[in-house]
């Protein structure tokens, strides 16, 4: 990946993580305890957590972003987002995917708005949901950038999958 593309990926990942932090802290009242970032061609697989949503980015660079959540965090989000709504306990499970899709929709909306301000218009694909602890294998010449975020109610990972690798 050339330096220009590398800078774009870093700007996109910074915008997404910043919007995610703000939304979780301000709207959902979930605190981040720690954030760990790994970048490069260190691993050939992504280990998915219990519920994952994958969205395609297109614009200055085409990439995928995946948010992968521990079930404990999904349940916390579900509890927050359904508070005061007329939903029985039996029905709650059917809203798990919706709550993640809505949360990520808002986070990525804020990210693309901040990127658009710097002249980088981004289009997003509809989200794809994966409900399993599976793995994603790294395609040839792609790289995974992983940001692992520990909150006070569970862990989630944000993966950026870009089309060529970044060194260093």
């Amino acid at each position, binding site marked *: 990946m050339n330096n220009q593309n590398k800078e774009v990926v870093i700007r996109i990942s910074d915008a997404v993580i910043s919007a995610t932090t703000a939304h979780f802290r301000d*709207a959902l009242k979930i605190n981040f305890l720690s954030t760990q970032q790994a970048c490069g061609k260190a691993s050939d697989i992504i280990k998915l957590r219990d519920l994952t949503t994958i969205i395609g980015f297109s614009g200055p660079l085409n990439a995928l972003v995946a948010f992968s959540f521990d079930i404990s965090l999904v349940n916390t989000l579900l509890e927050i987002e359904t508070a005061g709504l*007329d939903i029985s306990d039996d029905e709650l499970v059917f*809203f798990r995917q919706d709550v993640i899709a809505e949360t990520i929709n*808002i986070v990525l*909306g*804020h*990210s*693309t708005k901040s990127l658009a301000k710097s002249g980088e218009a981004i289009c997003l694909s509809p989200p794809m949901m994966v409900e399993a602890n599976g793995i994603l294998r790294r395609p040839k010449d792609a790289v995974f950038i992983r940001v692992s975020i520990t909150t006070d109610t569970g862990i989630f990972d944000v993966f950026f999958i870009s089309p060529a690798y970044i060194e260093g």
Partner: protein
Amino acid sequence: MFSLNIMIVDDSQLAIKKMEATLLKLGHNVKATATTGSDAIHKYRLEMPDVVTMDITMPEMDGIEATRRIIVEFPDAKIIMVTSHGQEDMVRQAIKAGARGYILKPVDAEKLAQQIETIINL
């Protein structure tokens, strides 16, 4: 403000539930709900709601196309787009298609009430 009959269009059942709770708190009736653009057109014809809240991104037929088709058939239809930040270009397309206004997610009850009042008085 008097009670209005409102149709909610969104592909997320959770978003429908949340919008329904907000509208009920504001004193309105939820006349119908729809989860796709084509379902929205069909239900609009049947129910003739006073106001529609329309999500933009939906499978099969999106909210912009559904708005365009409802307005062709019912030019006085009052449609509010429900959208996220970063979809400004889509909002412009929806307004061009005939939507009367828009509101950002997460939906704030006070802003929704203002938006409804504005489009009813247009």
